């Protein structure tokens, strides 16, 4: 199918641990799929500290919101260990959105707006080495 060919011609990039894939506040023009490794999504909280919003594992998508609503990056995406990401062409996303049912498109935009609003309203505590270490220990206890 022509569509499959389109999806396969994608840019792939490797990142080292700590590399910034995009910065919070940047204008967004690409969405990404993690092919290998992990990506940490980090946001600035009160006091200028950083808080982890989530970890995207292989197969996961990130960066799609700013691409769709033409806003700025809500958080930074940072390689957690070496990782490989595929970028999804903006053209593809825009074309498909334009062609889709207007009600579906409206709901997609609404969900993005809600995600941004709720994230802004959430007073996340900052990451600390102690807290992150404690979480790892808790999870490994069955």
């Amino acid at each position, binding site marked *: 199918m022509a*569509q499959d060919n389109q999806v396969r011609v994608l840019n792939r990039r490797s990142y080292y641990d700590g590399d910034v894939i995009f910065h919070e506040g940047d204008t967004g023009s690409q969405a990404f799929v993690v092919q290998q490794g992990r990506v940490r999504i980090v946001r600035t909280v009160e006091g200028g500290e950083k808080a982890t919003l989530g970890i995207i594992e292989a197969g996961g998508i990130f960066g799609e919101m700013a691409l769709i609503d033409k806003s700025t990056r809500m958080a930074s995406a940072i390689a957690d260990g070496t990782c490989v990401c595929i970028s999804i062409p903006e053209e593809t996303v825009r074309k*498909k959105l334009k062609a889709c049912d207007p*009600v579906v498109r409206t709901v*997609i935009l609404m969900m993005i707006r809600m995600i941004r609003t709720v994230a802004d309203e959430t007073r996340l505590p900052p990451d600390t080495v102690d807290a992150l270490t404690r979480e790892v220990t808790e*999870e490994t206890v069955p």
Partner: protein
Amino acid sequence: MSDTASALGKRRFEAGDIIFMEGDPGTETFLIQTGRVGLMKRGADGLFEPLATLGPGQVFGEMALATKRPRAAGARALEDCQVIAVSRAHIDEKLKDADPFIAALFRILAGNLESTLDRKREVERAGRPRTDAVLKGRQEALDRAMDDLTGA
């Protein structure tokens, strides 16, 4: 066409009508065409506190389309009004026929919205969110959606 009309229905409410109550199961999102709607929440003392007043062109009850949570607030017609109600069944039908990329994107965003709401609730309750464990669970759902996206 009649399916669309009933799923994407026009509704009229009279001043004072309760459109939905806080805690009700939510299956529809509403767009106001005419009139005004007041959102309200029950306070600690059991009395209703007004949250917001919405007018023509504004949407309310939008969480219902993305999540299965009960209504976070109640909605009442402040004056006679006409609204368009969009049901989740309508959206699910549309997603069935949609480009798989769009359907996958929708599921991913709905999942992210749930995570974001969960996290907010965690923070408000305990002052510290669970992170990796909760999000890994979400990630499994996202991986399934991603299979459609990459044509796997």
